[in-house]
């Protein structure tokens, strides 16, 4: 009798132990996933902010008079399209929209190509050279802003996509899918668009 009582006690203890462990593991996995989702959202917002900065700096360059009128027009067209798309889709108010990037990829790729066309190495050298005699100081400063924004777009997209890969890897786990630890959060997607730096800016 005492043997079976002991067995019963042990069994209860083990069952409780397993339940506690399982509960802890589920809670831990859920919070880990929560953190990873927060990281993706932050990275997406950062990418959005950098894209806006890039578009605004490009607009400024187009309006500065440092480029010829035809180039300015091409650049202004692409940059204003990017700014418009951003205002149409305020990402911060609609995080799910943000995670899918709202189909903005082609617009941003267009701006990248417009920058590539507008800023061949010779033009960049020219804009920087005018800095020396102090006359067109602004052009060099705006160019530096475009350069910085283009680099930061590239970085922000890379880090966003890295964070997305982490979320997707965790969400592919059986435990996470079985217990629906991700809740209602949409599955984040990587963002693909052409973010190459204009050849003249490449260092």
């Amino acid at each position, binding site marked *: 009798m005492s043997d079976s009582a002991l067995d019963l006690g042990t069994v209860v203890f083990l069952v409780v132990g397993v339940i506690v462990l399982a509960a802890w593991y*589920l809670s831990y996995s859920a919070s880990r996933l929560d953190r990873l989702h927060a990281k993706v959202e932050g990275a997406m917002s950062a990418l959005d*902010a950098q894209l806006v900065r890039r578009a605004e700096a490009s607009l400024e360059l187009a309006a500065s008079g440092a480029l010829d009128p035809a180039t300015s027009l091409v650049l202004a067209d692409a940059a204003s399209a990017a700014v418009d798309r951003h205002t149409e889709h305020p990402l911060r108010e609609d995080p799910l929209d943000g995670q899918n990037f709202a189909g903005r990829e082609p617009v941003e790729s267009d701006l990248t190509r417009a920058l590539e066309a507008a800023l061949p190495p010779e033009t960049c050298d020219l804009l920087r050279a005018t800095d020396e005699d102090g006359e067109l100081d602004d052009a060099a400063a705006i160019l530096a802003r475009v350069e910085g924004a283009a680099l*930061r777009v590239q970085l922000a997209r890379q880090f966003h996509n890295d964070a997305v890969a982490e979320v997707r890897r965790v969400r592919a786990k059986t435990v996470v899918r079985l217990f629906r630890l991700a809740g209602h959060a949409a599955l984040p997607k990587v963002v693909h668009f052409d973010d190459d730096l204009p050849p003249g800016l490449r260092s």
Partner: protein
Amino acid sequence: MRIGIVCPYAFDVPGGVQFHVRDLAEHFLAEGHDVAVLAPQEDDEVELPSWFTSCGRPVAVPYNGSVARVAFGPITSARVTRWIDEGGFDVLHIHEPMVPSASVLSLWAADTVPIVATFHTSTVRSRALHVANPMLRPSLEKIRARIAVSDEARRTVRRHLRADSYVIPNGVDVEHFRQARPDARFTGTPGHPTVAFLGRIDEPRKGLDLALSALPGLRARHPGVRLLVAGPGERDISVPGVEVLGLVSDTDKAALLSSVDAYLAPHTGGESFGIVLVEAMAGGAPVVCSDLNAFVDVLGEPPAGVTFASGDADALVEALADVLDDADTRSLLRGRGRARAEAFDWGVVAEKIMAVYDTVIESAELAPDEQAGRVRDRLRRIRSGRRDRRKDSDE
């Protein structure tokens, strides 16, 4: 900006990662940023800069196929945690986050500060990683931006962590090498061309043995060639045509590179980044090197140097002798090398790293719930865990 940088290796001992961290810290300090560096320290007597903090004395342990001098244990761990808590950093930049030293500990201890990690090495043993993965993974997920110093290092990160990274090369003080002027001691004369070798002479992977075994073949085509060997190490070399210079000063090294007819890098492996190649290119030495991935990446496209099959003495002779034969090739390589070296200038490199800091700081600010305190965070986790289980039982 207040920047905390963590280096896993003793700061008072020479090494690639240490030099990188030191130069980076000095560059940002000169730009007016507030920088603090945490690393082990071998000798308490050594005077180190005021921005440096020691996390303890390193001990020698076998790690990753060689003996690593790293610091760990409860005392180091407490110091690392205190340094981070009291640092008030805007960004924490951890170098080699997989090395069991200040790096792993700081990654583990960091809580709310946005983290950037730089991967330097190209050799990581995958089995140890596989075993430690469940422990390291949650820490590694704190990293907001991964930087690799070369395409080779990036491939390693991808292979072992299944994660991507952004390549920002190591920085070199290009100006120092560009300003160097040829020195008559190292300059070749017609019939007596000079070739430089740099690096420890007793470290097999630097490839001095290969260079020495190729020397007879080279002398057959260029009887007057002088191989100038510069670098520390204990070894007796008395071979005709070889001049051992020993450890040379930075000034002499730059002068050497701007004087010689070719710089030879016969490395046989273990290089994740050819910093010495960049120095040679900046100094204006035509580069002849083995075709290691890291070297090919550094040379760029079109290649600013001539490569030969790694470990192949005959191929070395042919490549080097051809360069010594042809003044046009040498001047072409000099021009390309100087242009290519610009991409590795500290000014360019530090600007990119600063852009990474900007990006992660912004993404941390914009992320939801990042400011939640620890207790609240824990409560939230428990609640969400309950919610999930309840949801599960509902279904």
